[in-house]
């Protein structure tokens, strides 16, 4: 046992290095590759141009999510370019022998929701997808990160990718969360503390009591937004909560194989004495329901706080972007957000569209009606989430509250389909990005948890959910 103590990240990385060479990036083997319609067509075109096949088609899974409509999915996609992209994916998958869960399939959904749901995402794996929120899968104790299309082509062609080993960061959240505070608040809080670029160059491991106490779905929300502070990815060491979640899922090892796998997965923890390049600690009791006011996810406050003033900014260089951002949002420095009327409520995305998120929303809106001034869109993350929500009668609760459970897809998270927030309108959203125009040209986004979004749906304004629970 002379080996030096290693972090969880280092253990998984080391196991996947096919080749290491001085001055070159590591050649990393990829266990699981997910693809979708937007970032894959040019990669397949590249393979065709080189005249090569997919190296190991069984390790790639496809779904259609970014462009798909969330109503009437049984009809052909109306928008021509979207339809063409989805059809191109289907053709590419057929030609190259890749399993695809397209529209209408009971497993279709947002790529980062269906992977875990189907047991395709497992501890100790390396996982990539041409999508930055691939970090979601890190919740299982996997190295998962987003890649560009040239890299998608690399993985299709060789099942490997060239990567420099990132630095490591440990973020501990100690203690217990207060009432009305959920995992989305933890991650919005962390990003507000360290800024939207604060973890660039790092791979983050989340730890501490507050993280351990979270369900798998809540952990996915945290890892999902790692990218919003610039991190390559985020991961959480697997434990009984993880194994319990995986057990019995479609592609997970079954029976004896599962027991054996669990034994191995238990080794996936950071060794005593291993070091990180950076360690941050926060206290869960300091976290409150959060909301963003600006146009990057680091611009967040506790819902009861004021928007900072220009003078309060830590970095003087940020003043121009801060002013520009508030102007875009139509907000004044130094004013509160609480009570601000909203026009739309979007509950969806790979951050918060799993069954627990829908249950959270139902817990707030049950027996109540949505406010007259808001339009509410609730978009499940997958067909399986949708089916489960119906089985539990959540769709009825939503209907009684005055809104409809739609069909799965990315929807207003990035507004590539028809679900766009109109110019100038305010939307409280459970998604992950509040960038200018992200939810539609000139749309204005407040990021928050499903509980906070549900509260705003009922009152029609930014509300501290703790007043309703």
């Amino acid at each position, binding site marked *: 046992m002379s080996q030096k103590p290693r972090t969880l990240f280092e253990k998984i990385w080391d196991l996947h290095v096919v080749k290491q060479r001085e001055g070159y990036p590591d050649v990393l083997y990829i266990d699981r590759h997910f693809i979708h319609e937007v970032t894959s067509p040019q990669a397949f075109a590249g393979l065709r141009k080189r005249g090569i096949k997919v190296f190991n088609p069984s390790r790639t899974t496809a779904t259609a999510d970014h462009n798909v409509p969330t109503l009437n999915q049984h009809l052909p996609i109306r928008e021509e370019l979207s339809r063409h992209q989805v059809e191109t994916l289907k053709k590419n998958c057929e030609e190259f022998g890749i399993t695809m869960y397209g529209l209408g399939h009971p497993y279709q959904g947002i790529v980062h929701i269906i992977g875990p749901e189907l047991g395709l995402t497992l501890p100790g794996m390396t996982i990539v997808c041409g999508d930055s929120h691939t970090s979601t899968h890190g919740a299982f104790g996997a190295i998962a990160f987003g890649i560009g299309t040239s*890299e998608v082509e690399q993985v299709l062609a060789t099942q490997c990718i060239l990567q420099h080993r990132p630095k490591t960061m440990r973020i501990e959240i100690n203690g217990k969360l207060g009432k009305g505070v959920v995992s989305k608040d933890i991650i919005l809080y962390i990003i507000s503390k360290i800024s939207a670029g604060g973890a660039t160059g790092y791979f983050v491991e989340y730890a501490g009591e507050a993280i351990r106490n979270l369900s798998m779905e809540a952990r996915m929300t945290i890892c999902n937004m790692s990218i919003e502070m610039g991190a390559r990815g985020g991961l959480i060491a697997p434990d009984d909560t993880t194994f319990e979640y995986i057990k019995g899922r479609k592609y997970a090892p079954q029976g004896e194989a599962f027991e054996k796998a669990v034994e191995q997965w238990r080794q996936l923890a950071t060794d005593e004495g291993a070091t990180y390049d950076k360690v941050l600690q926060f206290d869960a009791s300091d976290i409150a329901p959060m909301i963003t006011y600006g146009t990057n996810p680091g611009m967040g406050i506790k819902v009861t706080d004021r928007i900072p003033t220009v003078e309060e900014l830590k970095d003087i260089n940020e003043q121009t972007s801060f002013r520009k951002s508030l102007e875009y949002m139509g907000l004044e420095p130094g004013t509160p957000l609480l009570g601000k009327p909203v026009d739309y409520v979007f509950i969806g995305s790979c951050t918060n569209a799993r069954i627990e998120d829908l249950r959270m929303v139902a817990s707030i809106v049950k027996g109540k009606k949505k406010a007259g001034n808001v339009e509410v869109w609730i978009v499940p993350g997958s067909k399986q989430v949708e089916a489960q929500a119906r089985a539990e009668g959540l769709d009825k609760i939503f209907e009684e509250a005055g809104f409809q459970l739609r069909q799965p897809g990315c929807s207003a998270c990035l507004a590539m389909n028809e679900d766009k927030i109109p110019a100038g309108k305010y939307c409280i959203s459970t998604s992950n990005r509040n960038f200018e125009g992200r939810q539609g040209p000139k749309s204005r986004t407040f990021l928050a948890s499903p509980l906070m979004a549900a509260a705003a749906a009922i009152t029609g304004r930014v509300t501290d959910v703790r007043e309703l629970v």
Partner: protein
Amino acid sequence: MSKEKFITLKSTAVPLPIENIDTDQIIPARFLKATTREGFGENLFRDWRYDSEGKPKPDFVLNDPRYKGKILVAGKNFGCGSSREHAAWALADFGFRVVVSSFFADIFKNNALNNAVLPVTVSDEFLNKALRTIEADPSTEITVDLENQTITLADGSSETFDINPYKKTCLMNGYDDIDYLLSLRDEIRNYELTHS
């Protein structure tokens, strides 16, 4: 597949002194529906460049005839946000070969390099100086020397920048990553056989 080689570049530059320029600004999601790599330059910085009727906004720098060139000089934390390579395609398609900033998002940096767009990271001071110099004289030229890893302004002030030696070799020779990985296919097969 070989790409255009990059050794040195001397060009006028376009200033864009805005921080945290995210990939949704570089190329809004609604323009990601193409299935080829070409033509994204038209929609580069679309929502800053054109109004809702598609008319160029005169106050945006790409619509300002004084500023031209193959170098974009942008504020800190350039390229944050999504992994869409379309952002790099749009910059390359528009004609940029270099982006200068004091900080780049990770995925963007990789995507840019994979498309022969060189991200040059400089200090905040150098960045500010470069921006002031260009704004004072739009015809001023900046020289980026990849071999020596230097960036030099017209007044001779210069800074060195970092680049991974592997990526440097690729850019200078016009190679790409897939060529290298494909040469390792036997080793990869062997890894698969011994690791599952």
